[in-house]
C-alpha cells in the first residue's frame, strides 16, 4: 500500500510539474498586449493556441488523478477553498472559448474583449494556481471529521474557515508563490515565442529582452520563496506535530530530491542565461522547460514524502492530509497503477505531434494561408 501511495504521489507531482511547464501558454497570454501590431499579436496567439488545449488537458488530468488517488484532498481542498477554485475555474473557462472565438465574425464581444479574457486567464490562472499549490506547503484552515457522516443535520466531513479560500489568496506566502509562477510562466512564454515564431529580428530582440526582465524578476521571487520554504516548519504525518525546517530536512534526507532540485534550477537558469548571451539562440525553452519539470517535481515530492503532511491543517493539526490518510484504497491505487502504464504511450505521441507541428517556426506568411486560425 505504501509503495502505491508513494508511486501515486510521484505521478501527481509529475503532472503538477508538467502543468507548471505548460503554463507558458498562460504566461504568453499576459504578453499579448506587448505586441507592436496585429500581425505579431496574431502570430503569438496562434502559436500559443496550438498548445492551449494541452495545458488545459493537463490541468483536468491533474484534477482527475488527484481525485482518483487522493480523494480526501479533492473533497477537502475543492469543497473548502471554494472561492479559490471557482476563480481558477472561471479563468480557465474564459480561456477555452477565447482562442476559437476572438477573430470569428459574429463573436458579439469583439476581439479585444477575448484578448482581455486571455489576459485574465494568464494572470489570474497562474497566480491562483500558485496560491493553491502554496496551501500544500503552508497549510490552510480546515478540519476533517469523518464521523459527521452519521449526522443528519451536519453530514459534511470537511469544513474550512468562513472565507472559503479567500484567506489563502490573502496569505503573503501563497501570493509570493503565485507571483513567482506568473513570472516563470512569462519567462517560459518568451522562450517559447523565440523558439516557435519567425517574425524578424526586432521580434527576436523584444522576446530576448522579455526573457531577461521576466527571468530576473522570477529569480528574485524564487530565491525569496525558497528562503521562506526552507525555513518553514512542516507537519510530521505520523505524530501530527510541527517540525522546524521540515522541507529543508526532507531535501537533505531525500538527497536525490535535493539533487534533482539543484539540477532543475541550474537548467532553468542556463536556458535563460544562454538565450540572453548567445545571439540567435532559440532552444532555451527546452533547457528551462526541462529544468522547471525537475524543480517542481522535486518540490512537490518534498511536500508529501518523508512522513510529511502535504496539506497541513492550521486549525487542527490532526486533520492534516498525508499521502497515507488521504489516499484511495489499495485496490483502486493498484488498478490505476496499471492504467498509468499507458502514460509513456501518451507522452510519446504528444512529443511526436509536437515535433511534427513545431518543426518550423510560424511565420506571417504561413498564418495568412492557414485554413484555421485564431
Amino acid at each position: 500500500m505504501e509503495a502505491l501511495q508513494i508511486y501515486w504521489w510521484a505521478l501527481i507531482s509529475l503532472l503538477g510539474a508538467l502543468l507548471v511547464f505548460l503554463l507558458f501558454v498562460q504566461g504568453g497570454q499576459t504578453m499579448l498586449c506587448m505586441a507592436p501590431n496585429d500581425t505579431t499579436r496574431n502570430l503569438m496567439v496562434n502559436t500559443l493556441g496550438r498548445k492551449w488545449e494541452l495545458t488545459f488537458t493537463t490541468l483536468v488530468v491533474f484534477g482527475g488523478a488527484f481525485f482518483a488517488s487522493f480523494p480526501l484532498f479533492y473533497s477537502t481542498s475543492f469543497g473548502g477553498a471554494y472561492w479559490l477554485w471557482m476563480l481558477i475555474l472561471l479563468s480557465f473557462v474564459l480561456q477555452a472559448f477565447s482562442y476559437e472565438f476572438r477573430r470569428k465574425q459574429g463573436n458579439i464581444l469583439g476581439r479585444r474583449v477575448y484578448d482581455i479574457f486571455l489576459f485574465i486567464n494568464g494572470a489570474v490562472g497562474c497566480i491562483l494556481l500558485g496560491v493553491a499549490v502554496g496551501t500544500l506547503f503552508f497549510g490552510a484552515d480546515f478540519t476533517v471529521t469523518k464521523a459527521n457522516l452519521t449526522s443528519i443535520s451536519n453530514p459534511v466531513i470537511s469544513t474550512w474557515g468562513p472565507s472559503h479560500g479567500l484567506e489563502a489568496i490573502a496569505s503573503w506566502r501563497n501570493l509570493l508563490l503565485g507571483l513567482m509562477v506568473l513570472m516563470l510562466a512569462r519567462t517560459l512564454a518568451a522562450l517559447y515565442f523565440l523558439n516557435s515564431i519567425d517574425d524578424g529580428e526586432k521580434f527576436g530582440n523584444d522576446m530576448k529582452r522579455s526573457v531577461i526582465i521576466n527571468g530576473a524578476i522570477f529569480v528574485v521571487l524564487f530565491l525569496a520563496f525558497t528562503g521562506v520554504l526552507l525555513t518553514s516548519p512542516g507537519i510530521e504525518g505520523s505524530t501530527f506535530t510541527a517540525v522546524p525546517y521540515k522541507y529543508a530536512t526532507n531535501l537533505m534526507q531525500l538527497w536525490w530530491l535535493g539533487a534533482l532540485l539543484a539540477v532543475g534550477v541550474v537548467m532553468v537558469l542556463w536556458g535563460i542565461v544562454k538565450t540572453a548571451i548567445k545571439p540567435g539562440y532559440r532552444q532555451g525553452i527546452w533547457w528551462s522547460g526541462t529544468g522547471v519539470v525537475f524543480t517542481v517535481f522535486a518540490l512537490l515530492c518534498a511536500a508529501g514524502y518523508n512522513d510529511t503532511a502535504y496539506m497541513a491543517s492550521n486549525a487542527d493539526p490532526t486533520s492534516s492530509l498525508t499521502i497515507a490518510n488521504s489516499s484511495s484504497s489499495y485496490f483502486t491505487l493498484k488498478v490505476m497503477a496499471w492504467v498509468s502504464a499507458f502514460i509513456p504511450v501518451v507522452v510519446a505521441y504528444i512529443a511526436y505531434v509536437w515535433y511534427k507541428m513545431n518543426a518550423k517556426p510560424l511565420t506571417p506568411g504561413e498564418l495568412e494561408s492557414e485554413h484555421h486560425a485564431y
Partner: protein
Amino acid sequence: MNDLMSVVDWSRAQFALTAMVHWLFVPLTIGLSLIVAVMETLWYRTGNEKWLRITKLWMKMFGINFACGVATGIILEFEFGTNWSNYSWFVGDIFGAPLAIEGIFAFFLESTFVAVMFFGWNKVSRGFHLASSWLTALGVVISALWILVANAWMQYPAGMEFDPAQMRNVMDSFTDVALSPVAINKFFHTVLSGWVLGAVFVIGVSCFLLLKKRNQEIAYSSIKVAGWVGTVGIVLTMWTGDGSAVEVSRVQPMKLAAMEGLYRGECGQGLVGVGILNPDKQIGDDRDPMLFGFEIPKGLSMLAKHDTEAFVPGIEDLIDGIELTADGDTIHTVSYADRIEAGRRARAALARYDEAHAAGDTEAMAAAVNDLKADYKYFGYGYLDNPEDAVPPVALTFYAFRVMVMAGGYLLVFMLAALYMVYRRRSLLDNKLVQLCGLATIAIVWICSEAGWIVAEVGRQPWVIQDLMPSRAAISAIGSGSVQFTFWVFVVVFTMLLAAEIGIMVTQIRKDADRDLMA
C-alpha cells in the same frame, strides 16, 4: 437545516445548469467528429476535391463547438469537489478512477490530434491527417465512455463495499464498475444519440444551403453522409433505449414509475402514449393520476420486462413494498418506511463503530460492522424524513420522457425521409417547406437530447448514489449565498458563451451559403 436544504437546492441548480449547457455542445462534438472523419476518408480514398471542401466546411463548425464543450466540461469535474465534497470522499475511491482514466486515455488524445486536424493540413501527410481526425473522434468516444461509466455507477452502484474505518465506499471489482449493464447501455444510447444530433445538424444546415440555392452539390453530398450516420444512429438509439428501459425497471423502478406517472401498477400494465397528469394528485389519495391519457395496452409491461403480463410497480406500490405475481398474488417487499428505519439503524451502527474504534473495543467494532452490513443496502434512506422524500419530481420526469420518445420517433421518420429524398426524389429537397422542416429539426433534436438527460437525472432524485446517498448528504460546507452567487455568474458566462457561439455559427453558415464553396 433550512440553510442546508438551500445549499442543496442551489448546488443542484448549479450542477444542472452546467450539465445541460455542457450537453448542448457534447453530442454535436460526438456526431460531427464522426461525420467529418467519414467525409475526410471519402476525400482520401477518392481524391475528389469536393470531399475536401466538405470536410473543411464541417470541420470549421466542429472547431467552434469543440471549444465550448471543453470550457463547460472542466466545470463539471471541478464541481464534484467544490459543491459535492462529501460525495467526493464517500465514493471518490470508485468515482475518481473513471475520471482519471478519461483524462489519460481520452483528453490527451483529443487535445493532441485536434491540433493536427485544424492546423496540420500543410504540416503532415494526408494519411497522418486522416488518422488524426479519426483519433480525435475516437478520443471523443472514449471520453464519453468513462464519463458515462461514472454516471451509470451513480445510478447503479456496483463493484464496491463499505469500509467503516474510513467511512467511505471502496472499489472491489473494477470490471463490475466499468462493465455494468447499465453503463454499457447508457454508453451506446448516449453516443448513438450524439450521432443523430450531429447528423440532423448537418442535414439542417445543408437545407439552409439549398434554401439559398447555392452549393447544392455540397449540400446533397453532406446529406448523404449525415443521412446514413443519422439513420444508423437513430435505429440503434431506439434499440439501446429499449435496453435502458429494461435496466431502469430492474435497478431504478421508482424512476420508471415516475416516467409513467404510475401510482398503482398491475400485471399487463399499459403504457401512456400521450397524457396530461393530474396536478392535484398526491401520493396515497384516490384521485386519478391522469386528467387525460391515451394508453397502449400492456405496453409498459412489454417495454420494462419484455413480458406482456409482467407486473410493473407504481410509486405507491414501491412505497408500500408491494408486488404482484403473474397470478395476481401479493408479494411483500421492503417498504420505504422500513428502508428508512434500516438506513437509520445503519447510520447508528456506523456511529457505534466509530466510538468503539476510538475506544479500541474490537468486540464492539465487530458487532457494529455486522449490524451495519445487514442494513447498509438502505444506508441513504436514513437521511430521509419520510417515504415521499424518495419520490422524484413526477411531472418533469413524465413529460420529459414523452418529449424524448415522441421526438425520437419523429427523428426516425426524418432520417429515412432524408435518405429517400437525397437518393430517389431529390426534387423534394428543393421544396422550401422541406428545407424549413430540415432547419427546424435542429431545434427538435436538441430538445430530444436534453429531455433524455432530464429523464435520467431528475428521475433518479433524491439520490446522488442510488439508495446510498441522497443529495442532501453529498454537499460541501459552504453558505448558500456563495453558491447562489456562482450560479448567477455561470448564468452570465454561459449566456455570453451561447450567444457568441450561435452568433459565430450563424454568421459562418450565412457566409458559406452566400459564396461558391467549390471555387
